[in-house]
């Protein structure tokens, strides 16, 4: 995480506990969510790393990002980069989740502001949109 934030100046990935407890540092490594605060730089060698800055395609937000915006899932925003990437990986694995499954799937990402409900609403809506777009 230090390389991302201090050397590459990609400060979108956040440190909040430095111990793997809170999920704020979540990034995607070869498409799977990982806690960057627990990773050594050497573990990135040869891998595809996606941080929050790389999720949108130009002006087009990812369906999860758009849903978070529309559903009011963002308050202070500090947990959001990790939460969004965790949700992206979660939906890749479980494209048609129940609300309970969404709650369990995101239980590794702490949020102190929202009480999680609008986050769950957003992920549910994003899942529906992604499924619909996949059908087209």
């Amino acid at each position, binding site marked *: 995480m230090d390389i991302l934030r201090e050397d590459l100046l990609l400060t979108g990935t956040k440190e*909040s506990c430095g111990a793997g407890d809170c999920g704020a540092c979540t990034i995607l490594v070869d498409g799977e969510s990982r806690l960057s605060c627990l990773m050594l730089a050497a573990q990135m060698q040869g891998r595809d790393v996606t941080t929050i800055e790389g999720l949108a395609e130009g002006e087009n937000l990812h369906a999860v990002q758009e849903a978070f915006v529309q559903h009011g899932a963002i308050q202070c925003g500090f947990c959001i980069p990790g939460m969004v990437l965790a949700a992206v990986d979660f939906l890749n694995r479980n494209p048609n989740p129940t609300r309970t499954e969404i709650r369990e799937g995101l239980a590794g990402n702490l949020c102190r502001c929202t009480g999680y409900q609008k986050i769950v609403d957003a992920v549910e809506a994003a899942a529906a949109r992604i499924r619909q777009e996949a059908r087209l």
Partner: protein
Amino acid sequence: MGNQDHQIGPVNIHKFPPAYNETLSVGISLVRVDAHEKVTGKTVYAADYYGKNMLWAGVKRAGIPHARMKAIHTDRAGRVPGVFCILTHKNVAGTNRQGVIRKDQPVLVDDKVRHCGDAVALVLAETKTALRESIDLISLDLEPLPSVINPEHALEQGSPLVHEDNADGNVLLKGDLKIGAGSIAEQECDVIMEACFETQRQEHAYLETEAGWARMEEDGKLVIVCSTQTPFRDRMEVAEALDQEPSRVRIIAPYSGGAFGGKDGVTVQSLLGLAALNSGGRPVKMWWDREESFLSGTKRHPARMYYRLGARADGSLHFLSVRLYFDTGPYDHLGGVVLTLALEHAGGPYRIPNAVLKGWAVYTNNPVSGAFRGFGVPQVTAAMEQMMDMLADKLGMDPLELRFKNAVRRGDRNCVGKTLDASTGLMDCLEALSKHSLWEEREAWKCAAGPFKRRGVGMAAVMQASGYGPVVPDVANAKVELTTDGKVRVYCGVVDMGQGNASTNLQIAGSILGQEAGQMEIVLPDTDLTLPSGSASASRCTYTFANALIGAAETLKQRVLQRAADMFMVRDIEELTLFPGGVKHLVSGRELSLGALARFLNDSERVATYRFRAPVAKDSVTSDDGLKLHGLPHRLFSYGAHLAFVEIDELTGKIDVKRYLAVSDCGKVMNPQIYEQQIHGGISNGLGYALSEDFKVHEAKVHTPDFTTYVLPTAADMPDMDSVAVEIYEPTGPFGLKGVGEIATNGPLPAVANAVSDASGVRLLRFPLTPERVLKAIRDQEG
């Protein structure tokens, strides 16, 4: 380190993204202005500032709770490669004292260590590694003193003193209120309930820990960027503590990654200032890691509360006696204000004609207690709302019926004797709750409990005052500018720490000036650019600032229309209207763009400012000037009624909250999405307080310094929440609004405790309600 310097530009402007160009109106759910930048990782928080040539600043903490400072040895620490310098109190030129009401907290310890997290030395180093190594090598000559760890013992004769120069021993503030006939009225009661409640410390646990960055600019100005709720107060505190001219200190407050009261008062500010004064012009950064935040940041006051509540046989409350002991830790940090608010709310939102209310905010060597969402009210609500249920049980009354019987209405006197002359919607909240489908289904739901499960439903009535009380001015100054590009730029005076007031402010200004999202810009709090507007606290952020903003926006609107009228040679400005991007003369159809108009105005005409001071109570409830200064009484209250649906596992004692309803009277709703965000967040803080968040301190040392030992609710722990807004118009509020930021935090603990009692017959008086405590209580009851 990255190659760029972090630029502090003259003005840092935030806007809606280009694709978003909705009409701005008050009362609808608009997407927040900060949502897009936060979801793409573009937002730069105080913790995100770096820069070429930057030094890391870190603090050596005392490690023991109470000691005389003899010497600080920094030689070995100073020789660690990469260490730039080590500073102690000797380097602090000013008073070396900080505090909001009582200035009793040093920037760096000089005479005594007063808690384990006390800051003793400040190290500046090239790397985090050098910083840590150096801090570890600093040694302290300390003469340990007996610690003060129990608030009630701290009040006894002969107790060690935390501040020897305090005239009142270990008392920071005490309150003693007699209402009506006082204790004589106890004899007139038909029923008396008595209990002692203990609530625990709670950790704010904002995701962005205490953080900031500072630099001495070439012109001699000290610039500090920090995650704070109080940029203007910070400026005064830093200036005084470090002997700087306030006008030579600039505090910038970007979007904060959560605060909840933990950043109301100094955290990193003076330390950063001290570092920047000694770094040879290099920028400095301080970012507390999670453990340091646990050890050194402030906490919710733990409280022991003795209650005696008396009523007549018909259920009307007649007498209340409370003794509140709030452990405030070693420094003021608003502890007296918390105690005062607790006393004011100790009787809840009810008519209680006679009362004796006593409380003490006590100095100890435990971790520092300070502001935390609710601010003394969650503690007393935990007690009072359980007393109400216990009383209802004794009287054979339904708990809701007992609340209806005693709920304050407008014009009543509350339990500290304040006449409620502002909007008072508690009855409406109780009505709405009683008609809600969840209330109607409750018995059927309880009966459907599965094997080894017990279900219960519990309620709580809540209130929360807003503002600072009758003495401290609750003032905001708004500034709105028509830029030469024809944009409307709002200078936000109150920090946006996630509550979305940046967006609410744009919604208000845009709606008054008839503009769409695309025309609006916002500047976040900055002591050089925005105007003093008080703290982001006390549920007054929108109430007070928005009232000022309405004035500024209306002033600018009038000026724009007047000037356009002059340019159109029209006499009656009522023939003109603002529309997105311009002004139109309705009669002739002529239009003028805002940009063109702006370029005709002198710079001084393009800016409008307006000051608003919140109205205060005119009636007094005490002659104690100390209590008045600390906020007694308030004038404006929000109200609510909460309902918790709880399922207990008989085998493990675990409590699952299945559903939660919060009905709230916070005036008219300006933005339903933002309103709900506040209610949801408050409920989740309250449920953590109720069930799992147990900040453990033993012998003044913290035993829960991380998220493994201090358990926060996750998405899997939280129920689906229903929020109902009872929209009673508050005439003094902007568009009829009252504060919503804190009130929802007060309901969950007592509602859940009442539900647990309903489910199991067991009443727990110590918190949180961990599975161990619940299981033991159920076993004891059966045994």
